């Protein structure tokens, strides 16, 4: 995975307890077009397990997961 | 006219009792035959012995008293009256010394039980006209109230005539042979016929018959299910 992933939209999910990050990312992904990339920034470590499971059930792809300090950053490509 | 009277006082009574008993048994059998819901559905905190608390809840509905004391007063009054009327009707069949521990003239209550039940029924009826009860009431609710009202009015009327106005032509000693004749399966309506008041009895029996026949298929089955449901809530 290259480092130069360009996001089309960013949502901030910091401070939200689970399952709110998943709920919001599920909404957020619908605001980008199929093929575009959504950047989601969460702070709750629960997102680390929730997001991959969500991507699998919703049929989207997590391109990359970054950690910067307390932030967990997901790059998600909308596949359908 | 005589054949209509006969129909209501004899065959219809038999049919009504048959449907009442068979229908209620059917309802109970249906409940037993269905799948069981295994997990507990009780409400905490528990109070022991839960069986006695369930009986207390089923017969005295303490939470109704807490939230709506006026309704509770009429509900208790109504059900006590129903019970007294049941005892009263038993004494139409024969003399029970147990029931005469507190000596009284048959029919028990000198007509005031019937008056009480009518007042309670009118309260229930008018209560249904007020929001929000009006909106979730269904025709069944009014139908049952009307049947109860009509049964009670004509039933009470017979007693009021006798005890309050000294109308002595149709008394316990006329009803008794009629009822006993029904029980012994050799129906004879002679004793209660040919008195000016007979049509009151006929109307009373007619509406009571309807009520009995509708009972197992209506919300009146709460009289059967109140105890088991309260036991489930108490976690028997």
């Amino acid at each position, binding site marked *: 995975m290259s480092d130069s992933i360009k996001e089309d939209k960013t949502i901030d999910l910091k401070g939200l*307890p*689970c*399952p709110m990050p*998943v*709920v919001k990312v*599920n909404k957020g992904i619908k605001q980008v077009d199929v093929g575009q990339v959504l950047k989601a920034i969460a702070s*709750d*470590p*629960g*997102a*680390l*397990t*929730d997001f*991959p*499971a*969500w991507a699998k*059930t*919703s049929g989207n792809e997590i391109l990359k997961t970054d*950690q910067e300090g*307390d932030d967990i950053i997901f790059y998600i490509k909308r596949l359908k | 006219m005589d054949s209509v009277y006969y129909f209501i006082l004899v065959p219809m009574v038999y049919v009504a009792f048959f449907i009442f008993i068979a229908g209620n048994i059917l*309802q109970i059998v*249906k*409940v*037993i*035959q*269905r*799948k*069981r*819901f295994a*997990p*507990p*559905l009780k*409400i*905490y905190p528990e109070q022991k012995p839960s069986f006695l608390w369930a009986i207390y*809840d*089923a017969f005295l*509905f303490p*939470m*109704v008293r807490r*939230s*709506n004391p006026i*309704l509770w007063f009429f*509900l208790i009054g109504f059900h006590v009256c129903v019970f007294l009327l049941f005892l009263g009707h038993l004494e139409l069949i024969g003399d029970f010394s147990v029931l005469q521990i507190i000596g009284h003239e048959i029919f028990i209550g000198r007509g005031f039980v019937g008056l009480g039940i009518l007042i309670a029924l009118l309260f229930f009826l008018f209560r249904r006209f007020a929001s*929000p*009860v009006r*909106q*979730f*009431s*269904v*025709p*069944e*609710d009014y139908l049952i109230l009307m049947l109860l009202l009509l049964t009670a009015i004509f039933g009470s009327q017979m007693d009021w005539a006798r005890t309050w106005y000294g109308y002595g032509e149709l008394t316990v000693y006329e009803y008794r042979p009629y009822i006993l004749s029904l029980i012994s399966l050799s129906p004879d309506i002679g004793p209660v016929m040919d008195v000016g008041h007979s049509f009151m009895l006929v109307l009373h029996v007619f509406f009571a018959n309807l009520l009995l026949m509708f009972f197992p*298929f209506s*919300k009146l089955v709460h009289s059967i*299910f109140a105890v*088991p*449901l309260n036991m*489930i*809530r*108490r976690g028997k």
Partner: protein
Amino acid sequence: MDPKLHQEMLKAISDKLTGVMQMYLDTCSRCGICASACHVYASVPEFENTPVYRAESIRKIYKKYFKLQGKLLPMIGEAVDIDDNTADMLKKTAYSCTGCRRCMVYCPFGIDTQQIMSIAKLLLIKAESEPEILSMLADVSISKGDSLDSVKENFLKGLKKIEADVVEKWKLEAGKVAIPTEVENADILYVALAGAHSIVPAAAIFNAAGENWTLSFFEAVNFGAFVGDPSKTKLILDRIINEAIRLKVKEVCICECGTAYRVMAQLSGDKPFKVSSITQVHARYIREGRIKLKPLPADVSVTYHDPCQIARNGGVIDEPRYIIGQIAKDYREMSPDPKTNWCCGGGGGLVALGDETIDFRMKSSKVKADQVKKSRAKILITACENCHTQLDNLNEHYKLGVEVKFLSSMVADALIK
């Protein structure tokens, strides 16, 4: 309407039609006592907000297809067909009920509206009209159970991030793990939520008590139960049960989550381990002298909101009061009694639906806000994730000026050597 769907919906009702359910459906006399017992009706007095109206939405369908009265004389009980409008109607009734079962306390027969609404929720699923978010969350939970290995890796990564927070609350002896996982024969398997706030205080307390514990890989909350899907509920539950059996633990301790506790403790049959709520475990530690707590200053007033599924429906009533008694001098009972405590207004999946339900949740919980206000306490404690979120929202909306706190974090903050 599609005859196949019609058939499926009828089958769903008959699957739910246990003996108890039939009694619930046959017995109601529409006295309306339940109306004022419901926080929704008490806050917004419209007839659609009464438990009996909600139950009637199912009862009228039941009469039509399963009751002689409805078959012969449908108009007497206003029996209705299942048709294309059914789902729209049930959406309103099923998701305006939080399943708190306060109405059941008042009903002279003890009719359980939550049970009746479980039929409505199942019918919505069949008609594919259930709240999409809840089904999605349930699927996410199930998917985690299916791919445990990939979950493990990320989960442990997540734990690394919060280990320091645990140690900050309670210093560990050298060589001890702050958050143990996969400990066989552990005394306690702790099932948390997928969030730091549900793990950190609990871990500190387990460590302080010297407990032989292990953390579950799965979150406790059961979105299958919220959405009312029995098969998903079971799949989600089974992940945890299987983990507990695999590790041969003695006791499963459920975090501060009402639904999770009730489903695990009461609605899932016999299990080869004990089930406790974390509140019960903490009370036990204090009673046994395994942890010691420093009381709050005497002038700090606190009150406790009993989560419906844990107190009224789960029986954990004395324990939180015992714990609070150790921490706070000025405790104020919120309601006349825990049995009739008002629901926070966020149960039944409403909180998980987030912004979608916030208007309804705020309007329908005015009585709860008033109850909190009346206590005049500074700190509002609760022991359920849902309640906490909802109470936080209420605090903001109604300007209650309280601090909403989890009981477990109060305990963790009060730990002393």
